[in-house]
């Protein structure tokens, strides 16, 4: 079973079309990984699907980096 961190990074790579080597925990989706507004929406939806959870819009807005996403998932699933 993969860790939350591995699963989050895998989704980030798939959604944003970036290589695993480019994704650090500190990477910002928009600034470092080139996500646009639609990418971030799709990313949140993919995380919701993978972890079978619902992320409210006001929480989703705060998830700006890989670490933010990992922390949120760990705290809420």
């Amino acid at each position, binding site marked *: 079973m993969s860790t939350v961190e591995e699963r989050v990074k895998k989704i980030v790579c798939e959604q944003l079309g970036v290589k695993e080597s480019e994704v650090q925990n500190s990477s910002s989706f928009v600034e470092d990984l080139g996500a646009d507004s*639609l990418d971030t929406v*799709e990313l949140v939806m993919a995380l919701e699907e993978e972890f079978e959870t619902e992320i409210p819009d006001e929480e989703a807005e705060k998830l700006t980096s890989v670490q933010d996403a990992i922390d949120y998932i760990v705290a809420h699933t």
Partner: protein
Amino acid sequence: MSFEGKTALVTGATRGIGKAIALALAEQGAEVAGTATSAEGAEAISAMFAEAGLKGFGLVMNVSEAASIDAGLKQVTEKAGAPLILVNNAGITRDNLLMRLKDDDWADVIETNLASVYRTSKAVLRGMAKARWGRIINISSVVAGMGNPGQANYCAAKAGVEGFTRSLAKEMSNRGITANCVAPGFIDTDMTRKLDEAQRNAMMEIIPAGRFGDPKEVAAVVAFLASDAAGYVTGDTIHVNGGMYMG
């Protein structure tokens, strides 16, 4: 123009313009899921495709209920794959002069003709975004632009669909997804056959082409907008009305 390997969802496909659209897309290779409001209607759509030797099937979907749309879409996706072409055609009329229009006539038309477009479009976007390709084609009406006495509800819904389509087009353009409207004029269907002789004659006078349109003439424009060739056309409304209104 080939839709081989693509799945199309066409709402309101039992008759008229929707039926012509379903056939036109299937003739060019798409697997078409056509929706009806009853089981008999869905069976008739399946039979229509089988008779024509085309890939396609009917299903029951009530476009005014989110749960019914979700269930229908799941069925289509399991059977044929996520639809990358959506044609929102299902529509009703509840005509009356505004002074006599009932609240239900207003609500039903807004629900079935406008809110449904929001629901079905939202439901298919995920699959289209993943595929980086999609076509959403909404059937509007000439009256959205020109207005029509007795159709305040219908005109409001159709004009709403056109505005919705423009926003959707801007949101999704960089994903290879286009959204457009086709606005038919006076097409010879059950809906327009409900008009009385005097109304039909009055319509004829304002149609420069001097005849009513054929559903196939609307379907041909929809098929074009659904094609790869139309990839740079988005947010637009194409009129198919024999010249009766030019925007």
